[in-house]
Every structure is written in structure tokens, then in C-alpha cells.
């Protein structure tokens, strides 16, 4: 079998809660025949030894199979049955010669004489190997005095505290979790001293893998998250904000990973705005947008998003974990990236790949650091200079005098426009028409379009000429065109035309309303000078002397 096939098989087995011991045994056998050259470089090797006072045959083989899923090639040594003491204290024992990087010590209470015995074993292992030593703690049972168990467990705790290389695996908690009555001291104990039933080996192997992963230096760094039916029950695009229910169990777990330094990224088939809405406004979300280091809520293939995310974060995909409720997406990601650990959401809490021996301050900050980096990059990418941005819009502006056919629209604009409307004078069609026909009035219209479409008539300037002062009677713009300097271009066209008409001064009025604060500094911003101010009216004057205006190059201006 090719290594890639074995990878695929272990990945499939991982998803299957009913995966049997026999399946894993056959994987371990198949792996024995794989050529070293067939194994990808991101798969790290690890030598793991097992030392037990009861039968754990099969467990090392299952760890070999599980290792493949975690990108670790585990080589194992199983010490002879109940010879843990000899193996530990003999400098030339099979264990010592194997030179393991990690040793699992599974010793049961009846096989330990006293704390001194336990200490001797620990000293022997420390002296004769350079391995991380993982002691299973002692499981209580009705037939053994609680005092004795407590004494032994205290001894282990003491060793763990004193020795960097010694760690305790909470085996008692594990047995309790999977159910002591079905797994600990069952009929298998009588059949072959399998005090732990063989069907407990698969979940146990996942617990043990965390030490292997950490020792091999293959701890996962990045968790790629699906959203619908993963972080919450329901589909945001269909069920809406009130229809979805954030899953607190998984989110709390993911948040704990984030605090340990795991980088969180979103990879979801969704409308970007819908997905962000949940993170920003759903009251039951534990995870927030600021926990996410890379964000892909779109409709392109998830594999493509993964490639982009890896590039963006500068991480190898072999450090990725992908969770998704969809078997289809799991399958695609598994096939494209055999190095990625692919999980159903419900398997995440028991997944061992994120384990590291010591969580440093840097680890704890890592998730946040990547988020900050994203924000910084987003600013760089999304904020070119304003003019550069506007140039990309391809905005063109036509300014012309109102024709009879424009009267209805012009009147409507004076009636409806509230925000960018300096004087807010409302005119009927007849009033507009009579002024448009008058010699001493100009009704200017602005029409705009850009690469996104044609906006039609978006502004009106009504100008009255009297002697040498031109009065801007009405000046307004539709809000959807603001922020592109259209208003100032429009104003300066009006001013230029006034000068051509022989005006030496132009007067503008700002008449405050409840809604037009947006344009209160419009005249002042465009070199008008405040001439008089009252409660209901601000009068500005503009003169041509010394004033120059450069039309922005990004607006293509046509004057008709």
C-alpha cells in the first residue's frame, strides 16, 4: 500500500467511532512495508516505548495507525509483560537500547510494592533514557484501599513537579470518561490480563498521541473553521439571525484553543456579510470577529481558500486542522491535502493534535498576533490614497442646464433631498420651470456614472444672477454620490460659470435643518468666507481673487 492510501485510510478511520482494533492492526502492518522514500517530509518520526504491568498488546500498533493521522510516524517498543521494573533499572535493557523519545508507563496498583518501588522505576528511566516519561496515574477500585492509591498518585505528582521529563497522564479520568464498568477489569482481564479492554485502545491511543505529537514537534497551529452547522446549529443564509443557535460547547473549546495560541480562521460557503453579522451581532456567540486571523466567507472551493489562507498566514498546510460538518467538504479537503487533519465538529474536543508540553506567553499571544497582522494587512490593502481609490471607480460627471424633460426629476430632487441640501428650498415643477426659463437664472443639473452603473441626475444647483453678485439659491446632491468630490467639482463649475457671467462675488447660504448637518461646512471648505450668521441662516461670500481650484483628475468632467 502507498503511504498516501494509508493516510486516507487512517483519516477515514478517525471519523468512524466504530472503527475496530483490527482495522488499526492492519494499518500498522501495511505501514511496515512502506518505503521510507514514499513518506512525505512533513511526517516526523518518533520512537515510543510502552512499559506496562498488564497486557496492552495492540495498543502500540494502534498508536502507529493514529500517528499517521497526526503526521507522525511512530516506531514502537513494547516491553515484555510485567517486566517494567527490570526494563527501567537495567542500563542494557531492550527499552534502554531502543533509545525512545517517549515512554508510556502503565502500571497498575497491585503491581507496585510501594512508593519506593515507583521511585526506583522513575529514577531508572530518567537515568537510562533521554525520553519524556508519561506515567499513567492510578485508578481507584473497590478492592484496593483509597489511601494506598492516594499515596502512589501523590508520589507521581511529586515526580512530575521535580522532573521536567516526567508527566502524568490522567488515566483515571480517561477510564471514568469511557466507562469503567465496560472497559476496566472486564472479562478480558481474566482472558489475557487485558485489564483495559481492547476496545478502549482506540480512544486511549488518541489521548496518548498528544505527547507524541508534542515530542515530535508536530503540534498543529491553525484551526480552519466551517460556520453553518459547525459553530452554530442552522444555516445563517436560510435561517437568519433568529433561526441559528451558536454551539457553546464547541465554541468554548475553540476559544480555549485560541487562548493557548491556536490560530483560528474561517472558511465558509456563505455571503460574507451574513457571516460577519453573526460574529458581530449575535448575542450568543463566544467567538468574535477579532479572534479570527484569516477570513474566507465566500462561494469558492474551500480548497482554494485553504491555499490562500496558508499563503496569507505563511503557514504550512501540514499544521492545519479542518473542521466541517459536511462529508463532501471533508472528503475534498482530505483528498487534496492529505497532510491536513480533517475532523467532524463533534470530534474536535477529543482531538490531540494541538497539544504542546508548555504553553508559553508567546503561544498565548499567537492567535491575537495573527489577528493583528491581518488587520494591518487589510488596512494596507483596503486603504490606498483616497485619490487612488477614486481613480479606480472611473467616475464621469456631466453638468448641463435643465431641459423641459428634466423638470419633473429636478422638482422631485428638491422635494426629497434632505442631507446634502444647503438651503432646502422645495420647489414645484412650475416653480422650477419658470426659473429655468428666466434670463437671470441657471438651473444646473449633474449626472454621474461609474464602472458600477449610471446614477442619472444626482444633483441640482439653482443660481440667480443679480448685478455683480451671483446667489446660489439651491444646491443639493443625492447622498449616494457623496464622498467622491462630486459636490466640490459641481460647485466649482457653478462658480466658473458665474465668473464667465461677469460676477465678481458669489453668495451661498447655509440654512440649517434637522437633517442637513452633513453640508454645514460645505461653503467654508470651498474657500467661501462667512459674511453673516444668524440663527436660521449663514451667508457666505466667495470672490475669485487669489482662489484657484484644481479639478481632480479622477473625475471625467463634461460641461454641456
Amino acid at each position: 500500500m502507498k503511504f498516501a492510501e494509508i493516510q486516507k485510510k487512517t483519516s477515514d478511520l478517525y471519523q468512524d467511532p466504530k472503527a475496530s482494533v483490527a482495522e488499526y492492526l492492519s494499518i500498522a502492518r501495511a505501514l511496515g512495508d512502506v518505503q521510507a522514500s514514499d513518506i512525505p517530509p512533513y511526517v516526523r518520526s518518533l520512537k515510543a516505548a510502552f512499559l506496562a504491568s498488564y497486557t496492552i498488546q495492540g495498543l502500540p500498533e494502534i498508536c502507529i495507525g493514529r500517528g499517521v493521522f497526526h503526521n507522525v510516524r511512530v516506531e514502537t517498543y513494547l516491553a515484555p509483560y510485567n517486566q517494567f521494573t527490570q526494563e527501567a533499572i537495567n542500563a542494557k535493557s531492550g527499552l534502554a537500547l531502543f533509545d525512545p523519545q517517549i515512554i508510556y508507563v502503565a502500571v497498575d496498583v497491585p503491581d507496585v510494592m510501594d512508593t519506593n518501588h515507583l521511585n526506583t522505576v522513575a529514577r531508572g528511566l530518567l537515568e537510562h533514557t533521554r525520553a519524556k516519561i508519561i506515567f499513567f496515574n492510578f485508578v481507584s477500585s473497590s478492592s484496593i484501599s483509597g489511601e494506598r492509591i492516594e499515596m502512589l498518585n501523590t508520589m507521581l505528582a511529586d515526580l512530575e513537579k521535580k522532573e521536567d521529563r516526567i508527566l502524568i497522564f490522567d488515566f483515571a479520568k480517561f477510564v471514568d470518561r469511557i466507562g469503567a464498568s465496560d472497559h476496566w477489569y472486564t472479562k478480558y482481564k481474566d482472558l489475557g490480563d487485558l485489564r483495559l479492554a481492547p476496545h478502549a485502545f482506540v480512544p486511549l491511543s488518541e489521548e496518548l498521541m498528544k505527547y507524541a505529537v508534542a515530542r515530535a514537534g508536530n503540534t498543529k497551529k491553525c484551526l480552519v473553521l466551517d460556520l453553518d452547522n459547525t459553530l452554530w446549529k442552522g444555516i445563517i443564509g436560510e435561517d437568519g439571525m433568529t433561526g441559528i443557535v451558536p454551539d457553546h460547547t464547541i465554541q468554548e473549546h475553540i476559544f480555549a484553543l485560541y487562548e493557548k495560541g491556536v490560530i483560528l480562521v474561517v472558511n465558509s460557503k456563505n455571503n460574507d456579510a451574513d457571516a460577519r453579522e453573526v460574529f458581530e451581532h449575535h448575542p450568543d456567540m463566544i467567538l468574535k470577529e477579532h479572534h479570527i486571523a484569516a477570513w474566507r466567507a465566500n462561494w469558492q472551493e474551500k480548497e482554494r481558500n485553504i491555499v490562500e489562507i496558508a499563503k496569507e498566514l505563511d503557514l504550512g498546510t501540514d499544521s492545519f486542522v479542518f473542521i466541517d460538518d459536511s462529508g463532501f467538504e471533508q472528503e475534498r479537503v482530505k483528498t487534496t491535502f492529505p497532510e491536513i487533519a480533517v475532523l467532524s465538529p463533534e470530534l474536535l474536543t477529543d482531538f490531540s493534535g494541538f497539544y504542546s508540553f508548555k504553553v508559553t506567553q508567546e503561544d498565548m499571544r499567537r492567535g491575537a498576533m495573527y489577528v493583528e497582522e491581518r488587520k494591518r494587512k487589510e488596512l494596507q490593502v483596503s486603504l490606498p490614497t483616497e485619490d487612488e481609490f477614486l481613480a479606480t471607480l472611473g467616475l464621469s460627471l456631466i453638468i448641463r442646464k435643465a431641459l423641459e424633460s428634466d423638470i419633473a426629476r429636478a422638482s422631485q430632487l428638491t422635494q426629497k433631498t434632505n442631507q446634502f441640501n444647503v438651503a432646502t428650498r422645495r420647489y414645484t415643477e412650475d416653480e422650477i420651470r419658470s426659473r429655468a426659463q428666466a434670463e437671470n437664472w441657471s438651473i444646473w443639473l449633474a449626472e454621474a456614472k461609474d464602472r458600477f452603473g449610471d446614477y442619472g441626475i444626482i444633483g441640482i444647483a439653482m443660481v440667480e444672477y443679480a448685478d455683480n453678485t451671483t446667489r446660489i439659491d439651491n444646491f443639493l446632491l443625492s447622498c449616494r454620490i457623496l464622498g467622491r468630490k462630486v459636490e466640490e467639482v459641481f460647485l466649482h463649475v457653478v462658480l466658473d460659470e458665474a465668473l464667465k457671467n461677469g460676477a465678481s462675488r458669489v453668495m451661498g447660504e447655509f440654512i440649517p435643518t434637522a437633517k442637513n448637518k452633513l453640508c454645514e461646512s460645505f461653503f467654508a471648505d470651498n474657500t467661501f468666507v462667512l459674511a453673516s450668521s444668524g440663527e436660521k441662516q449663514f451667508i457666505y461670500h466667495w470672490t475669485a481673487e487669489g482662489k484657484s481650484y484644481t479639478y481632480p483628475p479622477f473625475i471625467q468632467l463634461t460641461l454641456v
Partner: protein
Amino acid sequence: MKTVEEIIAHVFQIDRSVITDASSPNDIENWDSFNGLVLVTELEKAFNVSFSLDEVVAVKNVGDIKKSLKNHGINISGTNS
């Protein structure tokens, strides 16, 4: 659902066709004590039964396994197809 023969073949890594009711540890090389116990867990899982200690110890060949399953109300006559 896997048949008894399929499970046995898988655990002992042998071809299904060589398995008969008389097959025993004497003629199946991989049928050692450990793989024998793996077989017990696989059968218990596949047929959702739990064998007693005595039942496991009493098994001498494939025919005995089938008898045990029958005693647990498992109809295996159709599983051989």
C-alpha cells in the same frame, strides 16, 4: 453487516474462502491468544452481544463461535452469502 467469516478473515488477515467451521488456532497461523481476543471484541461490536468468560474460553474453532452467536439469538444462517 459483515458476516462472521468476513470478520474472522479480517482479524486474522486470511482469505475468507479458506475458513470453514472446523478452522481453529491449529490451522490459522495468526489465531494466537491476542488476536483471539481481538476477534471477540470485533464480534461483540458487530453483533452487539457480550460473551461471558466461559463462552470465550469454550471456543475451539469457528463452528463454536457460530454456536455461541446462535445462543445469543443471532441468526447467522443468512450471513454466509
